[in-house]
C-alpha cells in the first residue's frame, strides 16, 4: 500500500483499533500474514547512534542498559538494530508498523494538553520482553515480520499539520529502539510547532536520554514494578536504570507521568505500592501523576485474571496516604479516580470517562476554584 492511501485510510479506520492502539488488519500485519514480497527492501539503512566499535567488526550498543555485544550479521536484543560489517544500523527508521490518531489520554497523559489528540506511531521491536505485553505482535517481532509503511519525518510532520494534530506520540512498542527515527521526527516536527511525547519503559542509558529530552515535550514511563526480581523474571530487564531515567527526566524539567500496571499476585502488594509511592514523593515529586492501571490477560500471561478494581482502589488510597497529589486509576472507565482533583480544595478539575474529557476547570494552570497551581502542560 502506498503511504498516501495508507494514511487516507487511517482516519476512516480509527474505530478499528485493538487494545494496544494499532490498526491490526490494516497496518501491523500479523505474523500469520507476513510474507516476503519486496518487504526486505523497505528496511532502513541508517547508521545507529550510540554504539562503540570493537575489533573484528564487533560493536557494543550503548543505547540501552542491556549493552548488547553484537557481531557482524547479528542483531541486538531488540531485533531492529543490526551489525552490518562493523557498522551498526537501525532497520526501522521511518518504517512505521502501527499508527493511529489517539486521544492524548490514551497514552495516558492526564496533565498534558487534555482533550487533544496525538498522531501515534510505532515501529517493530522492543528492548525488554514483558510477559504481559499487549502489543507483543509488534514489539516482540522483527521488522520484516510486520508490514511497514514508509513515513519519513517530513511526511509525518506534514500529516500532522494537514490534519491539525498538535502532538506526535512515539508509543505502542518501545520508542527507545527506534530512537533515531523518533529523534529526527521530533526535531523536524518541532519546526512546525508540533509537540512530541514519548511512551516508554524508560530502559535507556543516560546520554541518549539526555539528548532526547532536548527535543521532546513529555515522557510517560511504564514503571512495571518496584522490584528488581519482577524486572528480571517478568520483564527481562532491570529496575534501577528505569529509576535513574525517571530521575533524569524529572530533573530535566520534562513533563513526566508514570504508569504502574498492576498484575494480580505479582506486583500488587501493599508494601510495594507504598514503597513505590514513597520513592516517587522523595526522589521525584508528589506532583508526578502515577496511574495504577488494570491488567488484562494476554500474550504469555493468560493464566491470571484481570486486576480486581478493589486492588487498584487500594493502590490509589495508599498513594494518597503517602502524599502523592495525582494518583489515578486506569483501564476502568467510569471510576472516579480517573478524574483530576485539586489538591487544594478537593474539587474535580478535569472530569474523565475513559479517554473522554468532561469539564475542565483548570484556568491558566490553576484551579478555577481556589487558585492552586496544577502542575502540567496545559497550553
Amino acid at each position, binding site marked *: 500500500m502506498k503511504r498516501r492511501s495508507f494514511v487516507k485510510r487511517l482516519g476512516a479506520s480509527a474505530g478499528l483499533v485493538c487494545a494496544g492502539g494499532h490498526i491490526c488488519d490494516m497496518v501491523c500485519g500479523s*505474523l500469520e500474514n507476513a510474507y*516476503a514480497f519486496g518487504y526486505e527492501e523497505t528496511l532502513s539503512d541508517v547508521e545507529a547512534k550510540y554504539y562503540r566499535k570493537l575489533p573484528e567488526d564487533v560493536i557494543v550498543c550503548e543505547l540501552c542498559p542491556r549493552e548488547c555485544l553484537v*557481531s557482524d550479521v547479528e542483531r541486538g536484543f531488540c531485533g531492529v538494530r543490526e551489525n552490518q560489517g562493523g557498522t551498526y544500523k537501525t532497520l526501522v527508521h521511518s518504517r512505521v508498523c502501527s499508527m493511529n490518531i489517539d486521544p492524548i489520554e490514551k497514552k495516558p497523559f492526564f496533565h498534558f494538553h487534555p482533550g487533544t489528540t496525538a498522531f501515534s506511531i510505532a515501529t517493530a521491536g522492543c528492548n525488554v520482553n514483558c510477559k504481559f505485553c499487549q502489543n507483543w505482535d509488534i514489539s516482540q517481532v*522483527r521488522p520484516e515480520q510486520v508490514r511497514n509503511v514508509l513515513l519519513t519525518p517530513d511526511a509525518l510532520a506534514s500529516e500532522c499539520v494537514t490534519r491539525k494534530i498538535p502532538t506526535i506520540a512515539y508509543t505502542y512498542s518501545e520508542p527507545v529502539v527506534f530512537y533515531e527515527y523518533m529523534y529526527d521526527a521530533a526535531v523536524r516536527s518541532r519546526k512546525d510547532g508540533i509537540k512530541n511525547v514519548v511512551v516508554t519503559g524508560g530502559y535507556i542509558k543516560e546520554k541518549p536520554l539526555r539528548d532526547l529530552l532536548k527535543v521532546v515535550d513529555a515522557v510517560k514511563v511504564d514503571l512495571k514494578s518496584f522490584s528488581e526480581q519482577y524486572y528480571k523474571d517478568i520483564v527481562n530487564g532491570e529496575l534501577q536504570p528505569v529509576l535513574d531515567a525517571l530521575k533524569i527526566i524529572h530533573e530535566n524539567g520534562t513533563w513526566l507521568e508514570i504508569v504502574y500496571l498492576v498484575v494480580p499476585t505479582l506486583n500488587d502488594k501493599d508494601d510495594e505500592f507504598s514503597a513505590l509511592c514513597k520513592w516517587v514523593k522523595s526522589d521525584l515529586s508528589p506532583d508526578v501523576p502515577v496511574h495504577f492501571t488494570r491488567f488484562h490477560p494476554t500474550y504469555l500471561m493468560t493464566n491470571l485474571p484481570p486486576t480486581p478494581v478493589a486492588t487498584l482502589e487500594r493502590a490509589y488510597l495508599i498513594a494518597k496516604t503517602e502524599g502523592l497529589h495525582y494518583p489515578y486509576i486506569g483501564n476502568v472507565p467510569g471510576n472516579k479516580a480517573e478524574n483530576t482533583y485539586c489538591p487544594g480544595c478537593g474539587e474535580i478539575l478535569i472530569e474523565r470517562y475513559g479517554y473522554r474529557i468532561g469539564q475542565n476547570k483548570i484556568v491558566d494552570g490553576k484551579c478555577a476554584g481556589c487558585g492552586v497551581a496544577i502542575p502540567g502542560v496545559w497550553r
Partner: protein
Amino acid sequence: MAKSKVVLVSSKLLYSNGRPNSAKLGAMLSRGISLLHDGADARGIWKKFARDTGRLGLKPNCMGGRNMSTAVELTMALVSHLVSAGKDENDVVIWEMSSRKLESAGYELNVGHSGLKCYGTDARDVGYGTKFHSKGKVASLVTKIVESHCDHLINLPILKDHSLAGVAGAMKNYYGVVHNPNKYHDNNCDPYVAEINALPVIKNKNVLTIMDLTRIQYQGGPGYRGEYAVKFGAIMMSVDPVAVDAVGERIISDYRTRNNLPTLADSGRPPKWLKTAEKLGLGVADMNNIDLIEVAID
C-alpha cells in the same frame, strides 16, 4: 550412559575449482551413514530414510553468504541420495529463516508446488504458527515449515566461532526456527541454545545431523572473516546433535590453540550450553562418552 556415535569423514581431494566436489561429498555421505549404522549398506539406509521421513525439511545454515554457509553441493548430494533411494522430491524442502539468506548462499529458490522446494519462512503464505513454544523463559512462534509443513528434519549446520555462544554448530542452527532469535543470546546463549533444541517440535522431528566441515571458521564469527576460515575438508554425522557440537567445539578449540588464540573460556564465551543440553537429555556433551569414528577417503 550409552556412548553417542559421531562419524567424521574427510577427504584431501574434496575441493575442485575452489568449491567442494559434489560427487565426492556424495561418497562421503554414504560412507558416513554406513559407519553410523555399524557398516550397514548405505543404499539400504538411504532407502529407509526416504521411506520413513515423510515430508522432510533440510536446514542449512546460510548466515554467512557464499563464503561460510552450508555448501549447496553437500545439501544437493544428500537430496540426490534420498531421491535415488525413492524419496519423492516434492516431499523435500530446503529451508531457512529467509529466502534471501538461501539465495545469498547459492541456493535456488523454488516456492512452487512441484519439485524440490527451497524457501524461507518469509516466503508468501509461509510465516510462523500461532502457538507459543517454550522450554524456559523465552517463548516463541515457530516457523510453519517446522511446525506443520515437515514431519522430520535433517540438520545441515556449519561449524564456526560465535562471539557469544562460543561455537555455532548444530544446535545453534535451529535459532532459525523461531521468530525472535535475538531474545536467545543473553548469558552466552545459555541455556537458550539447549532450550530451543528441547522444544518438542525440534527434538522429536530432528532425525539426523550432518555438519558441513568443508570449511570452518575458528575466530571472528558468526560473520565471515576469511583470515580465520580454513578448508577442513570433512563432514560429520550423528543422530546426537549435542555430540556433534561437542566434537565441533574440540575442533574449533584445537585451531585456536594452533593459531595462538585464547581459549573460548578465556575469550569470555565458553559454550556452557553444551552441558545444559546434556542435562536436558538432548545428547552427550562429554567427550569421554562420545564414540568418534574418523575415516578418510580418497
